[in-house]
């Protein structure tokens, strides 16, 4: 089966690169440019993973993460935080909210793809 990934990111060039990387890894990709839209996309159809920026317009990544992990119907969605916020305190906060991974920008493309794949297909390793 094909896993679906939602990219929640407002920086166009980063969206472009993530879209390219996820498609190449064999996932289907949807894009949300702000936090509200990310939630709406999830409501429409549950993705298997979300690549979530924190500094999103309208509704920030922390709040989106909390909404996902706080909802029993959604909590199986893997949340990968992808942010320029490099402080430990932000990382702890995100993990505390139930995020599955915390990756700081700029990231290594290989590591990112490996990490997402690992979260989606743990037994196939």
């Amino acid at each position: 089966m094909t896993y679906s990934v939602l990219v929640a990111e407002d920086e166009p060039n980063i969206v472009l690169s993530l879209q390219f990387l996820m498609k190449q890894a064999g996932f289907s990709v949807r894009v949300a440019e702000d936090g509200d839209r990310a939630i709406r996309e999830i409501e429409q159809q549950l993705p298997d993973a979300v690549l979530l920026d924190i500094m999103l317009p309208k509704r920030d990544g922390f709040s989106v993460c909390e909404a996902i992990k706080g909802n029993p119907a959604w909590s199986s969605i893997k949340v990968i935080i992808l942010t320029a916020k490099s402080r430990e305190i932000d990382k702890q906060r995100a993990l505390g909210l139930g995020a599955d991974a915390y990756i700081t920008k700029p990231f290594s493309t290989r590591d990112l793809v490996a990490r997402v794949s690992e979260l989606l297909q743990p037994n196939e390793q």
Partner: protein
Amino acid sequence: MQGGVVVGVSFAYLGILFAIAYYGEKRAEQGRSLTNNPYIYTLSIAVYCTSWTFYGSVGRAAKTGLDFLPIYLGPTLVFVVWSMVLIKIIRICKVHRITSIADFISSRYGKNFALGSLVTIIAVIGTTPYISLQLKSIATSFNLLIGFQNPELPIYGNPFGIDTTLVVAIALALFAILFGTRHIESSEHHEGLVAAIAFESLVKLFAFLAVGFFVTFGVFSGFGDLFYQAQAHGLTQLYVVSADNDYGQWITMTLLSMAAILFLPRQFYMSAVENRDETHLRTAAWLFPLYLLVINVFVLPIAISGKLAFAGTANDADMFVLTVPIHYGQSELALFAYIGGLSAATSMVIVASIALSTMVCNNLVMPLLLRWKLVNLSESGDLSSLLLTIRRVSIPIILLLGYGYFRIASESYSLVTIGLVSFTAAAQFAPAIIGGLFWRGGSSTGALTGLSLGFLVWLYTLLLPSFAQSGWLPLNFISDGLFGIAWLKPYALFGLEGFDNLSHALFWSMFANIGGYVVVSLRGELSPIERIQGRHFVDVYDDTLGQNDSRSWQGSVTIASLQELVGRFVGPERAQNGFLAYAARQNFTLKGDEIADSNLLANAESMLSGAIGSATARVIIGSMIKGENVSMNEVYQLLDETTQVIEYSRMLEVKSAELEETSLKLQQANKRLKEFDSLKDDFLSTISRELRTPLTSIRAFGEILLEGQNTSDKERQQFLGIITKESERLTRLIDQILDLAKMEAGRMDWSMSNVDPTSTIEEALAAVDGLIKEHNIKLILDLDKSLPAVRADHDQLVQVVINVVSNAIKFCNHPGGIIRVSSRPGDNGLLVEISDNGSGILPEHRDFIFEKFHQSRRGSNQMPIGTGLGLAICRQIISFFEGNIWADNGEDGGAVISFEVPFAR
């Protein structure tokens, strides 16, 4: 009755008085005080009842009925309701060893010499009419008695071949000298005198009651019969209170007598100075009013009987007490009545003359002698004989003044009227004393002014008219005023009419007195000594002032050392003056090598208290006395250290205030630093994020291209383009961050010159021309080419225009964008407006668009991505040019960014 008998009885009576006084003093010496009991004290206060009461009340009652009563109403009110004033005065007299009313007032206002002298002069002049009244009554009664067969004998009967009144004056002067100035008392209490005066109060009471009983029950058969007869002869107006009588004067007389019982020099002397125990006042509070009541019971009956007995004849009602018994042939009763009148008169004259002579000596003559250096205190030995001489000379002078006034004025005045003139003079002391008791702000100049003004008004409105009515001054002085000026009429000053003479005088004198006292006190600054004394008087009940217990000092310090010691704190001159004044008050001589007694030590302590606070003063005096083994040098060293410590502590106080201020500033600075710190933190993390974003794209596409997997040529081209653009963005960002940091830190190199606005704007537009054309944006220029130069850095001003126009390019409509650039003179110099036809600025963003890293995400994807610093830099630049930059929305809804730069001068 034989003149010899009367003379003999008179002198026998005076002899008895003398014996009583002698006995009283002996008892006091043996420590078995006769006068230290509340009844004697009350009777001694009854010196208030003079011959004026004894004869004058009946005279007044015979003329105007109940008008005699207010004179006794006032004292009753004071004792029953207002005894707290008297208690406070008594306490102060004890604590400060006050010897007279002059001493009291001068001590209260900083031990002021001028004030003491003025009070003395007012007291002497004010008492003179009163003394003359006593002389008149004694002489008249004496003449009446020896002219037994003929009550209508002229008053100036001439049994001795000279004026009887003069003889009486001389006799009383001798008696007063014998009585009061035999030796200088070591304490302020004169037990013999008090005992004699108390005895006199009993004699006059019984004499008056005897006459009253005789009239009521001998002549008439009881009060019922008496008043029936009075009614039958139409005398009811004497005792029926009706609207026909003028009771307006009652208030005046009550007020006057209230002042008199407190402030007549002899009353002050008897009730305050001679008081032995404050608790005696509790008895006096009811007993004295009772005494007044009893002595007044028979006033009306005697008056009525006199009116009835002498109906139709011109008999002097002032003498009814004597002439009624004579009329009914009661010679012994008449003699007793005469003795009663004599006792009333002598008690007043003796106490008044002694009190006044003490004042004249202590507050007038001695200070002058010292001031004029006629007495050298440090050399001359025993001064007590000098003091006695001064008092002995002043007594006859005072009595002769009274006689003089009698000759001038008392012919035309009744006893009561003369007495009231004196009362009004005594009332002048009220503001200074009562003010001084309850108001710390009263000053010596204020008291001097008030007393002087009040006294002058009294002279003008009461004393001088009494001379005029006797023919010693022209009568038209009263009717037409001084120099014929109507406003200066002594009985209608400044056109004030409708009052009786007394109320008129009291009103104006009190107006001037109180007004002068309060206004001058409020306008002036208090000297330290005035402040200290004010505190000691007003807060006399405050035990922390430590006046009383300091008396217990016993020590072996010489006076000279003590004075030197005090001088170290208050200055040698003030120490000298203070010690001399103290010596004069206490009637002893200062000898430097003598051991200072406890009083002097207490005095030194109170002087020291003024300079360094009572606690320290106490410690210093205490250490001086107790530390026998401590040498004087050590004490002085201690004192110098103390002075230094005081100075040091004052400096510390200042320093501590400064420190507090500094610490407050430090706290504020620290708070701001913390704020800066967190701002810096935010700034750094924001920069970090802003740098990471383009880096992320660059690295991601770089790695994608590096892997080379499954990328088409087209994609590769696109990704390389992105990498280039993001690199440019990164460069721009770094440049702008550096610029902004420099500007904010004030380390930017500005090259300011006079810059032509139009060419600068055109230059900036040329730089963005490519971008404008690329997006098919229509540029509308509206430049005023005649604008003067502005003061600016040319390159930076170009940068501002580029940044703002770039912003407009990003946010105008796409396609069909329009940008308008205009320049014209504004309120504060050059005004440039750059507007676009985009969708404008959201209201919630308007305040923030000039903040660092504020970025609207609504920009077109086709545009170079902004750094979020462009407008922040513009604001820094414009504010350096002392201009303004702001944002708004235009009429078409697009954004308008405007800035102003002042023209070059």
